[in-house]
């Protein structure tokens, strides 16, 4: 395809009207695995090329290595590790990981199973007597938000405040100066500042205090890499709050939607609870919560397949397209929880592999198991459901489900 054609395909993917089913457009895009865009950026949509790039040390996550600056760049704020390269990325991720996972805190996620099950139980109790349930508002949103708030040490009751900031912020990630109102960008930048100020306020009170939450532990820990600065802690907490907030909701909701569209799998899951483990992996391939890594930078010239991407270029990685690549997966458009070859890109790959992946998996496994067990003859009210704006963090904004006459 020509540059004009691929640019047009990408434009249609990003357009809201294709949110319910972007997959045919991904197939179109894959005809040109590494597609130069009219603005000089590159879009990569095939599995092997994406996987190669994610393991390529010349691919930078630092916005400062782009020859054309990003409009959403925050200027002087300390970037979170997701937007840094080694060695800084490695150091900050390692310091945050000390309080979340192995080797320093290995039992946290597995040990949370009981708490997660309890939160899910409470939310499901709330379904009683309702004929219509919104899987998003009544379940898939409040569940991970409660978890991440508790984990980070952010008061749950502040959710209405930071929810607005996170929305504005996520909304601005795919800001396009040519088609979007300037307001969208300004709201996003303001929301970033507000969220940082809010987290900074919480952090101030944690110094010198005991506590098990991540904010307190990061504020008071002296590990082998020393102590994190307040700026670094705020950036890290900011990232974890957004990610813990805006991704798992999609995974759970996409999961329920997929099950409702595959009633035989739903029935099987009810009878074979162990199926949920491979099923969630297939979900991460088939309907992942994060569709696109919107930008990375070529630190030096990068050769992918037959294309040389020049130093400084912006590179967009179409993860969800890669996981549907027929050159990598047999019958990629079929939802098959028994699939054995399942090395998906749902959490990315390489050094930036999703920090919270293990928690997201466990949350989704527990959530879907409970939903299919407790919903009685669930039926989709509208298919497709209404979607959220973002083409990057893609998922329904509401998912209305009717139960059989509730008792």
């Amino acid at each position, binding site marked *: 395809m020509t540059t004009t054609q691929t640019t047009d395909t990408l434009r249609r993917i990003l357009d809201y009207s294709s949110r319910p089913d972007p997959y045919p457009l991904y197939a179109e895009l894959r005809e040109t695995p590494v597609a130069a865009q009219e603005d000089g950026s590159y879009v990569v949509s095939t599995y092997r090329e994406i996987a190669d790039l994610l393991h390529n040390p010349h691919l930078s996550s630092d916005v400062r290595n782009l020859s054309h600056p990003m409009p959403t760049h925050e200027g002087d704020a300390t970037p979170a590790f997701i937007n840094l390269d080694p060695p800084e990325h490695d150091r900050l991720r390692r310091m945050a990981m000390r309080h979340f*996972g192995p*080797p320093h805190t*290995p039992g946290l996620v597995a040990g949370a199973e009981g708490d997660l099950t309890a939160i899910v139980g409470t939310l499901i109790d709330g379904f009683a007597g309702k004929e219509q349930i919104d899987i998003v508002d009544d379940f898939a949103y409040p569940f991970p938000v409660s978890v991440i708030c508790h984990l980070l040490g952010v008061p749950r009751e502040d959710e209405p405040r930071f929810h607005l900031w996170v929305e504005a912020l996520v909304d601005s990630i795919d800001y396009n100066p040519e088609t979007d109102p300037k307001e969208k960008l300004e709201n996003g930048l303001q929301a970033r500042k507000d969220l940082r100020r809010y987290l900074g306020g919480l952090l101030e009170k944690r110094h010198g205090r005991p506590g098990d939450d991540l904010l307190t532990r990061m504020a008071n820990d002296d590990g082998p890499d020393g102590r994190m600065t307040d700026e670094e802690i705020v950036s890290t907490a900011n990232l974890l709050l957004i990610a813990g907030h805006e991704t798992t909701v999609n995974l759970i909701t996409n999961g329920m939607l997929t099950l409702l569209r595959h009633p035989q799998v739903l029935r099987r899951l009810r009878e074979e609870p*162990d199926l949920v*483990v491979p099923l*969630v992996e297939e979900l991460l391939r088939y309907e992942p919560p994060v569709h696109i890594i919107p930008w990375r930078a070529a630190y030096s010239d990068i050769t992918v397949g037959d294309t040389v991407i020049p130093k400084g270029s912006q590179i967009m990685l179409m993860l969800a397209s890669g996981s549907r690549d027929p050159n990598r997966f047999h019958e990629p458009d079929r939802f098959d929880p028994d699939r054995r070859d399942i*090395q998906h890109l749902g*959490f990315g790959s390489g050094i930036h592999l999703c920090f919270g992946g*293990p*928690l997201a998996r466990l949350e989704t496994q527990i959530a879907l198991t409970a939903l299919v067990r407790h919903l009685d003859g669930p039926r989709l009210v509208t298919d497709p459901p209404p979607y959220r704006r973002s083409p990057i963090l893609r998922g329904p904004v509401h998912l209305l489900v009717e139960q059989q006459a509730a008792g």
Partner: protein
Amino acid sequence: MRVVVDLSRCEGYAQCAFLAPDAFRMHGEEALMYDPAPDDDQRDRVLRAAAACPVQAILVDRLEGREAPVEASRS
């Protein structure tokens, strides 16, 4: 149960050590040590860990409970 990890595939993502910490342990930041014969009460966690491996390096016995794997015979 029986487990083997292809450590030549392993890139040290530690997903297994999150999900089944009694069977999979990180030795430093990246090196994995694991129990090749975890107790059966670890089964659910080990299966979760195996499914979560980003490089699919964890092999859990596929014969367990279905067939006697070998009839070792002394000559």
